[in-house]
């Protein structure tokens, strides 16, 4: 009995596209990105691997990544999804609004990491809660505007709704003291999720970097 071919829509596409936008990842991270159960993610990944679209890196990594064929398939599937729903104009418009917010998000991440003291950019050691609170307050203000863009995107293509959830989660965790959820590379931090959203918009619209 042969395995079913991976689905070009639904969860097959979600899992493939999560690797396209987030780079190599293990089950937990793909599950977080897609909102699926780890077991469902694993099942889809195995189907995708049999089809030659993803590959599993063992040797101390235990992560999955796209193959060249997977990258090509993703571009095709994601374009089909975009055009089938007639979503291109709405996603393009939302992307342009995202681009207005993007420099401000990067400013905020920089302010989180470095603060000027006597004109010297100094590593923010997070010993001054009032400074951190001020920066997080600006994150919250930006997040409100980002929520509008995410809502427009989700209305055009429902899978974008996941970013709203993940950004809100990151900000909640940061506000409750888990500071690595702002701009660190390890966690599903605000910056990490934002960068994946940026990559997703570029991939979805077929815009080269």
């Amino acid at each position, binding site marked *: 009995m042969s395995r079913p071919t991976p689905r070009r829509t639904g969860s097959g596409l979600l899992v493939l596209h999560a690797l396209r936008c987030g780079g190599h990842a293990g089950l937990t991270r793909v599950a977080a990105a897609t909102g699926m159960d780890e077991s469902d993610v694993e099942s889809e990944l195995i189907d995708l691997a049999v089809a030659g679209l993803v590959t599993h890196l063992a040797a101390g990594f235990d992560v999955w990544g796209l193959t060249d064929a997977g990258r090509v398939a993703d571009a095709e599937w994601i374009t089909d999804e975009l055009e089938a729903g007639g979503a291109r104009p709405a996603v393009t418009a939302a992307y342009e609004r995202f681009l207005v917010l993007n420099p401000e998000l990067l400013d905020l991440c920089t302010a989180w990491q*470095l603060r000027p003291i006597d004109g010297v950019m100094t590593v923010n050691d997070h010993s001054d809660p009032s400074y951190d609170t001020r920066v997080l307050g600006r994150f919250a203000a930006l997040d409100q505007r980002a929520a509008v863009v995410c809502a427009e995107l989700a209305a055009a293509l429902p899978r974008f709704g996941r970013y709203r959830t993940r950004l809100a989660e990151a900000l909640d965790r940061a506000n409750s003291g888990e500071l690595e959820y702002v701009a660190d590379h390890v966690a599903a931090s605000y910056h990490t999720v934002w960068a994946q959203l940026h990559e997703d918009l570029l991939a979805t619209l077929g815009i080269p970097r």
Partner: protein
Amino acid sequence: MRWIRPLSARVREPAEVLGAKAHGLVALHRLGLPVPAGFVVTVEACRAFMREGRLPAGLAEELAIAMTGLEAATGRRFGGAQAPLAVSVRSGASVSMPGMMNTVLNLGLTTEASAGLATETGDARFVLNSRLRFLSSFASAITNTDVLGVAAGPGGAHGRGTGDGDAQLIEAIEKLVRQRGGRPIPDDAARQLELAVETVFSSWDAPRARTYRELHDIPHDLGTAVIVQAMVFGNRDDRSGTGVAFSRDPNTGENVPFGDVLFGHQGEDVVSGRSRTLPLHELAAREPAVWTALIEALRRVEGHYRDACYVEFTFQAGGLWLLQVRPGRFVGGAAVRVATELADERLITRREALLRVSPHHLRHVRTPRIAAPAKADIVARGVGACPGVAVGKVATTTEAAVRMAADGPVILVRPETSPHDMRGLAAATGIVTGRGGSASHAAVVARAMGKPAVVGVTGLVVDVAAASWGADGRTVSEGTLVTIDGTSGEVALGSPPVSTDAADAHLRRLLAWADDVSGDHSEREEAQRLSAAHATLRHH
């Protein structure tokens, strides 16, 4: 006039009224240095605009009068079909908010004026390039996006060399402005000017600018001035160009001019990092008269500010013009060296030298640096995004970085980074990217990981197929050993000497002066010695 002041040596008002940029231009006038003719709309007008939601009564009339004066000073006609006058419109608050507000170049190049300028110069390509600059900078300001980037796609610098694409780009930008449903760009010069002033005022309250002020404790009600000056064209011909210069090296504090120059381009290209710049000293060989004038100007502004300085300049057909000046704001070891040497030169007193250096600077004095960049083989230069030195073999892809990291340290070199590069960034010891500045994705991640990083290397080309990268016409293969300095933004071949005490001799002398002031010669930490001197000086 109520809202407008001329840019001249006679103006006495402070930066709080004129904005810091215009205040600096007035200082340049007093020093007898060449500044394009112009005027400034004061921050008072901006505050009135913020209160009333429109340009204050009387400003349109004052703008018309001031333009008549500018026409008389330049012998040209604003929006005219013959000898048309084009102007730059720039923001300039009393406090520094770099990159937060708008600039419009070549304003007044209406369809008719462009035709007139083409007839006058006999250089249709120059005029087309200038009109493209006008439309893209104006459209970007109105729509609050990087219009040229959207219309042209990634990469792409727009100097004299790219004339063929300019007409298509102009069409694309005009289409984009129509699509956005914003106001079309008027083809009337006076109306363009009013709209540009209004747009610069509005940009004071853009969300990003508000965020910047919140983070830097800058009051929201300050407002910005607007500077209007006759254009000088860095894209006029092969003997024209633009650049930025420090009177001393901002990385080391050494008393040698330092900066970038770009031939055949207008000013924004240097700052935006869209184009490949050359080291400042290239100017000495190609335009010796401009070089000599610039060196003399740097000497005079240092004397005036009694500090290392930064200037932005343009040269048109072999003539130098200064567009901005400010103190250099050096940090770390460079601040220590400049303060000490300025005291030696008797430009400042030893007490002033001590107060010029913050105890916080001393923490950065010992950051590892490439010891003698002048002797190292520098293959590329960008912006230092995370201080420190990293030495390793070049990898041009994330896959290569992960693979090679098993055998020793790796420097990951990428055009820019995306989430796909996270494994490579994690595996690498240091990071180099082509696009993006000190707030780019790569810079944010590098700092989160505490890894030295150089970003925004202009002209960086990564050839993944050939497993090599290059900048400035040189090629470096994967596996080559390089050293990067995340403070200065230098990338050197091999492993040149690294030092943590580049400013040691200067620091020892400065701290000896500190002990003399405080009267305390006991063994203490360096920052404590300086703080004690500051405390004494502030009591007297």
